[in-house]
């Protein structure tokens, strides 16, 4: 609790500090490569025959996903707090890579916890983290994926709390993380809103983003929340089926519960034990969801739908061959929903899809699942 309170105070101070914002903006611009383009997907639009499709290209950000927006913000806080050791959890490895990246940039010691099952399916990222100087510790307990990595990271944190900052990668965990991480990703939606108004002179009818913990989605949704006519659509991992354990669609089978310091919708059994989950994409494979998403969904402001493993894999090929963009499997879930939804929309309507990351890390899985070479 003391560490959380310290972090909350430091973040509040930083928020009020013009120099903090200026420094973060500078790094986002010159180091990470912001702003990211909003790209009109002409061929995909024609193929689907409905709404005009724009792609927000977070995959073009340094390290290949949106994660670095948050890592840069938290890294500056670590510096302000005078800590030198950073730990993180990672699912697909993108947050791990972004954390290792900012630690190399700032000179911090870095330890990343990753489930051994995830290490196997996202090998490229494991190598990248080590090349960047981070220590990657495999977690063998439980399902050996993201939630187990979080458990281990939290154990490290409570043990080393005086010297260490836990650089949480999504809008989860105890306060202030869900708020703070969302704030660091708001830049995605802020840019997209300005970009679409410039390109089309009007707001989109819908925004589609994949939802694991919920950072990229809340990041693109947030600045549109007050634009009531813009539908906000979050896409969860529909996995391989509807039975508990075969997916990670929290709003399809979950109920309110507490996991890892957060009260939100959780996939759990009748005894309150947290359920195992499945998704072809490591980054969506998590039994709880950011509490702000739970609030948006309960308020009816945002809607959440699943996309299956098969649909995500298919969507990867479609985007690759229609627009020359290989999305991360996580982002492919958002593309899959776009493929279903755009044809039913008017040609005068606009839909923005958040391409939260690139798919290089997924070639192993894609090769196993698609008949290509």
């Amino acid at each position, binding site marked *: 609790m003391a560490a959380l309170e310290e972090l909350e105070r430091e973040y509040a101070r930083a928020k009020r500090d013009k120099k903090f914002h200026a420094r973060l903006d500078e790094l986002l611009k010159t180091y990470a490569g912001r702003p990211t383009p909003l790209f009109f997907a002409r061929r995909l639009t024609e193929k689907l025959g409905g709404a005009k499709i724009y792609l927000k290209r977070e995959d073009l950000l340094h390290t290949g996903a949106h994660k670095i927006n948050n890592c840069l913000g938290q890294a500056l806080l670590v510096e302000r707090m005078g800590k030198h050791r950073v730990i993180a959890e990672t699912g697909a490895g993108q947050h791990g890579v972004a954390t290792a990246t900012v630690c190399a940039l700032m000179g911090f010691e870095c330890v990343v916890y990753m489930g051994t099952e995830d290490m196997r399916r996202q090998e490229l990222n494991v190598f990248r983290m080590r090349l960047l100087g981070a220590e990657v510790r495999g977690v063998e307990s*439980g399902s050996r994926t993201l939630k187990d990595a979080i458990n281990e990271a939290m154990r490290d944190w409570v043990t080393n709390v005086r010297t260490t900052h836990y650089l949480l990668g999504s809008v989860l965990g105890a306060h202030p993380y869900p708020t703070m991480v969302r704030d660091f990703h708001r830049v995605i939606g802020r840019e997209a809103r300005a970009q679409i108004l410039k390109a089309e002179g009007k707001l989109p009818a819908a925004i589609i983003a994949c939802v694991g913990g919920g950072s990229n989605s809340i990041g693109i949704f947030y600045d549109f929340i007050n634009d009531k006519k813009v539908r906000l659509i979050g896409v969860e991992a529909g996995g391989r089926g509807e039975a508990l354990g075969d997916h990670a669609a929290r709003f399809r089978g979950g109920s309110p519960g507490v996991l890892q310091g957060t009260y939100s919708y959780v996939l759990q059994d009748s005894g309150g034990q947290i359920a195992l989950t499945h998704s072809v994409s490591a980054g969506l494979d998590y039994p709880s969801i950011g509490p702000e998403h739970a609030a948006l969904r309960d308020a009816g402001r945002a809607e959440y739908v699943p996309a299956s493993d098969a649909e995500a894999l298919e969507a990867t090929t479609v985007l690759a061959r229609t627009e020359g963009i290989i999305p991360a499997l996580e982002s492919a879930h958002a593309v899959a929903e776009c493929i279903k939804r755009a044809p039913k929309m008017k040609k005068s309507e606009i839909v923005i899809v958040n391409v939260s990351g690139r798919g290089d890390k997924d070639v192993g899985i894609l090769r196993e699942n698609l008949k290509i070479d």
Partner: protein
Amino acid sequence: MPLTFYKKPAMVAYVTCGDPDLATTREIVLAAIEAGADVIELGVPFSDPVADGPVIQRASERALKHGTSLGQVLTLAAEVRQHAQSTGLIIFSYLNPILRMGLGKFCKVARAAGVDGALVTDLPVEEAGEYLRAMREYDLAPVFLAAPTSPDERLRRIAEASRGFVYAVSRTGVTGQRQQLAEDARKLVKRLRRVTKLPVALGFGISTAEQFAEVGEFADAVVVGSAIVETVERNRGREAAAVGEFVRKLTAVSSELSAAAR
């Protein structure tokens, strides 16, 4: 309320219920009581024991494999209560299983079973409003963890909300045995005594009679958890006897300390 510490230091024993099975847990608990444990913490296994080290993690996994549930632990508590009238019984659980059962239902069943209190590992006092109301309604003692990193103001809040005793955590970290007791432990108990008159129990990392004696010099009770759980793990087929022997070794220290004090 049997949450009284009769000797100095009193002994609080934690077990993970359902490892290897509930019937054996009952034998283990009764053996510990016979050997001198004043309070038993009945640990409810959880899928994501974030505050626990490898020993309790393994025990929880084994217990969950045959579906050990909060409901079953409460039933076990009732059975233990029938055999042990003056032992304190605390349900030690993460929050989610309790929320799933319902706070009101949990308290009602716990009270009926003769449970004295509960310690919810991941429920900070700041978020405990509803829980405290339910516990008070059913005359159950809420026990909270106080950490060495908690500032004085937080220790005060913990003390105000606590009933029965305050559980001081000896060091930053998770459950598990350690060779040396950290400096943190003594300082924390001292700071707690400034804000509470409740007995202070110290736990995390205690496994030997020497450590037990050392803690007994400044705390009212000593909590032993992982060491007992590991004794269970290492003595398949004679768990209760092994735990009884182990607890007896530790509580012998209290007799010596009491004798020395006279």
